[in-house]
């Protein structure tokens, strides 16, 4: 699914530069559920952004589903993001003046799908996250957990190969976090490959594999016994 080889990334800070990723090697198979952990400044978000084609590596290879991701034009990156990737953000990043259905339909709009088809498909995904009744509500009328579910529905809408989640439970209380994790686990059970950045141990232990980063290198990469979030709810 995903293969990363000797990935380096540094950011210029004034005259000097900050070396954030110092040769990352990582490969993720289909159907895996990986947690990337590390303290702040360890480079975990940068790694996720590069995988999400929101940022570009300075050197090294990144192959996504057999497709080398290198020197992409903005346009091509946009198309790839739309086709291959689904994003779940910590702060949901829903568009606040669009209702749940419209938010979910947005990636499909950028795919050029017809309005009617798009709305049907968006509705299907909203049903899947259990929010069909809230389709016409604006994000501010929904709870945090509901908003994150809308965001997950949006990430799923374009049927991406890989789900990228950046601290998906970071803005939620524990109970809601576990609800969301249970839902993400269910997606993984259905075969979706999931990559998430988190700094919470309990959330990480709900994945099948934990990759620990420190100072831009992988310290530890181990498979773990998945804890089902459903048990906690």
């Amino acid at each position, binding site marked *: 699914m995903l293969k990363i080889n000797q990935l380096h990334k540094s950011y210029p800070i004034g005259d000097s530069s900050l070396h954030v990723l110092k040769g990352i090697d990582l490969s993720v198979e289909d159907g895996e559920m990986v947690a990337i952990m590390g303290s702040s400044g360890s480079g975990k978000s940068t790694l996720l952004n590069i995988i*999400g084609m929101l940022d570009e590596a300075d050197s090294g290879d990144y192959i996504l589903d057999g497709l080398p991701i290198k020197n992409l034009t*903005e*346009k091509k990156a*946009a198309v790839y*993001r739309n086709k291959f990737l689904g*994003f779940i953000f910590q702060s949901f*990043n829903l568009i606040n*003046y669009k209702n749940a259905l419209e938010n979910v339909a947005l990636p499909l*709009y950028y*795919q050029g799908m017809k309005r009617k088809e798009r709305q049907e498909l968006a509705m299907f995904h909203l049903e899947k996250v259990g929010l069909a009744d809230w389709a016409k509500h604006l994000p501010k009328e929904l709870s945090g957990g509901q908003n994150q579910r809308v965001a997950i529905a949006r990430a799923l809408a374009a049927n991406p190969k890989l789900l990228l989640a950046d601290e998906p439970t970071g803005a939620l209380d524990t109970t809601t976090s576990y609800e969301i994790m249970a839902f993400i686990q269910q997606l993984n059970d259905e075969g979706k490959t999931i990559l998430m950045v988190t700094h919470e141990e309990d959330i990480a232990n709900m994945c099948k594999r934990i990759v620990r980063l420190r100072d831009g290198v992988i310290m530890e990469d181990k498979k773990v016994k998945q804890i089902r979030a459903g048990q906690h709810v």
Partner: protein
Amino acid sequence: MFKFLFDRDTWQEVFDSFSKNKLRSILTMVGVWWGILLLIGLLGSAKGLENSFNRLFGDFATNSVFVMGSTTSKPFKGFQEGKRVQLTLTDIEKVEKNVEGIEFVVPRNMNQGLVVKNFLSGRFNIMGDYPVLDKVQKKKLIHGRFINQNDIDGNKKVAVISEDIYKQLFEKDESAVGEYIQINNINYLVIGLYDRGNVNFGPSEDIHIPFTTFQQVYNQGENIGFLMITGKPEFDIQQIEDDAKLLLKTLNKVHPKDKQAFRSFNLGKEFAKLTGFLTGMQFLTWFVGIATLIAGVFAIGNILLITVKERTKEIGVRRALGATPFEIKRQIVVEAVFLTLVAGVFGIITGGWILIALDSAYGQGADAAIVNASVSISVVFIALIILVILGTLIGLIPAFKATSIKPIEALREE
């Protein structure tokens, strides 16, 4: 390429971002609205003034010149300077025959007379005229008719009087036509009553009697007071004036360089000055209108720039979801054009209302200051096209600004 313009979603997006910032969008649009309002209002008013000038001068053949004899300032062919120059009917014939581009040459005589009607009297200017005068200086007849060939042939004692005289000499509601007035102790039958209108050149012309009657009564013989020359539209009236004067100088044995021998008043030249003034005003209007418009469009660009800054994160999310930079730019340009166009259309409509208001306030009646204040459809179209072009250009600035930030930085924005 323009398929997206017919896409409901494009407009949904525009409407969404508009309704999100209603007050700000409306305030932004005021600038463009005001610019268009000024442009339409001023152009319409200028057109109304032009129309009113045209209506006032419409009664005159504007390419005409008055010439009258005066005294010479140079000795010539044995004559001392200070010789009185007297135009005659022979001069008229020669001018008509020899000067190129002439439409009419109208001989006229003028005198002052004591006019009496019953117990009322006054001193007025008496004009001896041919029927052709009505062609070069249209008389607005209220009652009756102007002098005709029959009056000329029969030396009839008939008079056409202006409304002012009627008011001075007649009782209210009294019919003038068919009554007799005394001019220098001779009775004349009033055959017509006319309105002098607002614009007059030369001495006030109060009473018109047949040219031949004037000749006879005042013993003028072949002499004439002055003449009025009208040129054909395609000829330059100044050239006609110069040619006619030169010919008249030769005929009357006046030095060709004598500037005082003939006095003249070139109506064409005066009219050209007024038309020039109107053209200048129109130019000024366009200048002011377009400058205001540009200022308004800049205001829109400015606001969109702020909006884009505020929406940085949203734009980042959209790009993460697969919006290409082109799609983002296109959306912002569409918004800019939409705002300018809506503001512009409102400006055109309200500008139209102002013109309607002007018309009902100043545009009514025969001597209205502003006549049919209006702008042509082509002006409206030009204004709209300018708006679209300016809106597109100004929209490009925030559009490029929006996509110049990397999506990752945009997403980090709080």
